[in-house]
């Protein structure tokens, strides 16, 4: 396991939306999925996941439903709502543009100024 990256401020919400958009997941599942996709490079404080989930649910972007987990226990599964889908698109676009801009700035050489 290489050096873990600290999560940038405000990006946890976006990652959760993305993770949930791939199919219903309970809280722990969301964490596993993010870690799996990111190949364990992101450091996520486990406890901070839930306030974020509750906040997103309160905003109406995801919705939770009690179901049965793989280990036969009661678990709350979250999935994306229509509103959340639009939010995810908007946020993804924003993130890409921001990344491009930042990358562009960082690649600038003295000659180009």
């Amino acid at each position, binding site marked *: 396991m290489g050096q873990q990256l600290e999560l940038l401020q405000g990006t946890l919400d976006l990652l959760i939306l993305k993770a949930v958009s791939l199919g219903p997941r309970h809280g*722990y599942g969301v964490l596993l999925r993010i870690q799996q996709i990111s190949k364990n490079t992101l450091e996520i404080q*486990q406890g901070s996941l*839930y306030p974020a989930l509750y906040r997103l649910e*309160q905003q109406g972007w995801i919705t939770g439903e009690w179901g049965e*987990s793989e280990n036969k226990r009661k678990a*709350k599964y979250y999935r994306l709502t229509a509103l959340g889908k639009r939010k995810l698109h908007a946020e993804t676009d924003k993130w890409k543009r921001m990344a491009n801009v930042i990358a562009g700035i960082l690649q600038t050489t003295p000659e180009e100024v």
Partner: protein
Amino acid sequence: MTWWHSLRSGLSAVLRRKRLEDDMDAELHFHIDTYAEDLIRQGMAREDARRQACLEFGGLERAKAECRDALGTNLVESLLQDLRFGLRMLVKSPGFTAVSVITLALGIGANTAIFSIVDTLLFRPLPVRDPDGLTFLAFPRDANHFEPEFSGPEFRQIREATRGVFSSVNAMILGGLSSANARSDGLTVDGVTMPAEALFVSGDFFPALGIRPYLGRLILSGEGNVPGSDPVVVLSYHYWRTRFHEDTSVINKPAFINGRPVTIVGVAPKGFLGPTPLIEMQAYLPLGMMTLENGGDTAFLTDARTRSLLIVARLAPSVSIKSADAALGPLGQHLAKQYPRPGVQPVLQARPLRPPGLVNGPNPFPELAALFLTLSGLVLALACLNVANLSLVRASARRREMAVRAALGGSRTRLILALLVETLLLALFGAAAGMAVGVLALHALRSLAATASELPLVFEFPFSGRVFVFGLGAALVAAATVGIIPALRASRANLSAVLHEGGRSSTGRRQRLRTILVAGQVGGSLALLIAAGLFVRSLRNAQHADLGFDPGNVLNVRLDPGEIGYTKAQGVAFYSQMLARIRVLRAVQSASLVTIVPLGDNVQGDDIIIPGHETSLGEQPPHASYNAVSPDYFKTMRISILYGRDFFDSDTDVSPRVALINETMAERFWHGIDPVGRSFKRADDPQNDIEIIGVVRDSRTEDTYSPYTPTFYVPISQGYSPAQTLQIRTAGAPQAIGPDVLSVVRDLAPTVPVLSIRTMSDVVNNGAGGLLLFNIGARLSAVLGLLGLALAVIGIYGVTAYAAGQRTQEIGLRMALGAQPATILWMVSRHGLAIIGAGLALGLAIAIAVSHLVGDFLVGVGATDPLTYLGVSLLLSLVALAACYLPARRSMRVDPMVALRHE
């Protein structure tokens, strides 16, 4: 998210909080457990896996708290928290809490008591179905007076012609009240006769009200059309309870009204006191049974010139009073032409039956209500200022607490909210206690008023929903007034400044604010005391006014043989035999009979016709009050006969009609001429000339302050009424002769009801026309004024004592350096003096501003009477100075060493 949305989700979150907490718990533990299982699967020992999972998850409680925040439960929950905390803080300082609650209770109690009186007199609707649809019909006379009486033919014509406008038109007669003098009918059950105020109603009256009987039945639709044919009576609930103690066996019991047999068939519902405000109707009879009262005369139903019916009509659905009046217009014109009514505008009107309803004449209630609500509002304001002041003191003591709470992350709004919640709790406790105080105050007032009148006045002021809402409103206003300033102040405290200044806190601004508050209290209490002073002076003036008669040593015994069915001949014989036997009793100086007791009974009047005295068109015809009295009346009451002679026993029913007139009548109608020997006629009895045989001094009859009205007296033999009052002037205390008089009456006629025995002085002091209103006004305003004074004294004392206490160190230093006690006294009390000065100026300004409210109710004293203003200011200053001096004297005696070590 809007605040509404957040509040709603917060609220519902609180409601389903238990489930929410369980869910949250389950969800978080699921996470940890599943992670631990994964770790075990990866080969970790069970114990270690569990610990590792918990460790990586982080603080479980913190995560939960953040989740709760995310859900928005915090607003409502923190409010509940504040409530619990506020309650704890109040319990922790019981002295402050007790004083504040008592102060607010007095303020709110005074207000709820006065509001419930106002509510009863002005707002409370009749307890019937759709009370707003009930009206009575009348022709207006002038702005304040109207004529609500109709004849039988007029009633039937109106009923036929208004079928589209009214769903029900009914006639009623207030028994006794409509006859020559106000008397009740006598209800005899099991041989005991007691007066009952009777209402005679046409058959559809109760169906139109839409009320159900408490017991038995009410008057039925078909009853009352034929004179004398339906001898049934329905009792009011209140009368049934007080006289028969809720005995259900009186139903269907044979009874007698004025000696004629009737059957009690039912009890009207609880709370229904009849269609008039203030006077309780105790027995309801069919309209046709009016013959019980007038000896079989059916003119009230048949004669077009006998107008004694009141018409109560219910508006048809979706008809307003305005459209009803429009429809009544032509009918009124037609009626006025067919059955002329002099002195009346030919405009038939429907008027709302709600208070004041049938009360004729100018209505003083709104102005009285405004006056006393203003005064009691002032008391509440003073109470609020006082509690605000206490809270300020307490706030300074709690500045550390506030600063620490702020430092620990309490937001400013949160701190203000917490303090406001505390004040709100105080105010609510105050309101609860205040409503109890109000109920007690009303009870006291009711017993005071119960002695006022021979009529069953309704002085019941039930605790209604409106009163409760009013009290709650007063509490909220109080909480807002009291809480907001200290809360803003305390929450603004600067942390490091507070924590560094040690125990002492003495910011000038805080003290300045308290100074302003106390000056406001002094001003408010001065205004209240001035109002009280004016009322008390007015009462004293009224008490010392020349009544024109001498009420001392006179006993009044009110009798009514008509209530057991005596005929006129029987009545006349009874009264003359009784008078002869009373006059020879020991200690009796003179004895006489009177129909209308001055200042006690309602005055009767009639238009009069004077030969040679022409009335021009549009001018009111001459009008005079009259009374029927026996020989020796003027001697018993000590009213001087100026010219002519008293009545003799030889003035009888068959001798020529004679009258004595008062000075005002002589002056007005026979100006400059000797009236003795001249004659006039009553409009009600135009056949008979009445010869004037004498002139008597003016004396009070209706009230103690209005200008005298023309009044004439006729011999009681020429104006018989079954209800008469025996008046006896005695050598000693008048009450002492009571038993002797009773035994004479019992001996002559064992069953004649003796309605009351009271002294003439009592009638003057407590009679409806006497000083009752002055008494109530003076007592009420004095109580309010003294309440205000007490509150102001506490305020001044508090602020001076506090300031002196704060400066103990400084005073010690000054004294150690050689300052004289007098200098210290001046230094400490100077501040108080300034407060008193400012307060007096403010109070005088308030008093003058509200003086126009008081002015209408004063007699013999102006609303801006300088003597009262000066005297009360002086009194208040002295009391306030004393309140200042006490703490100042204590500072003067401070031992310098003690003071310096005070740190």
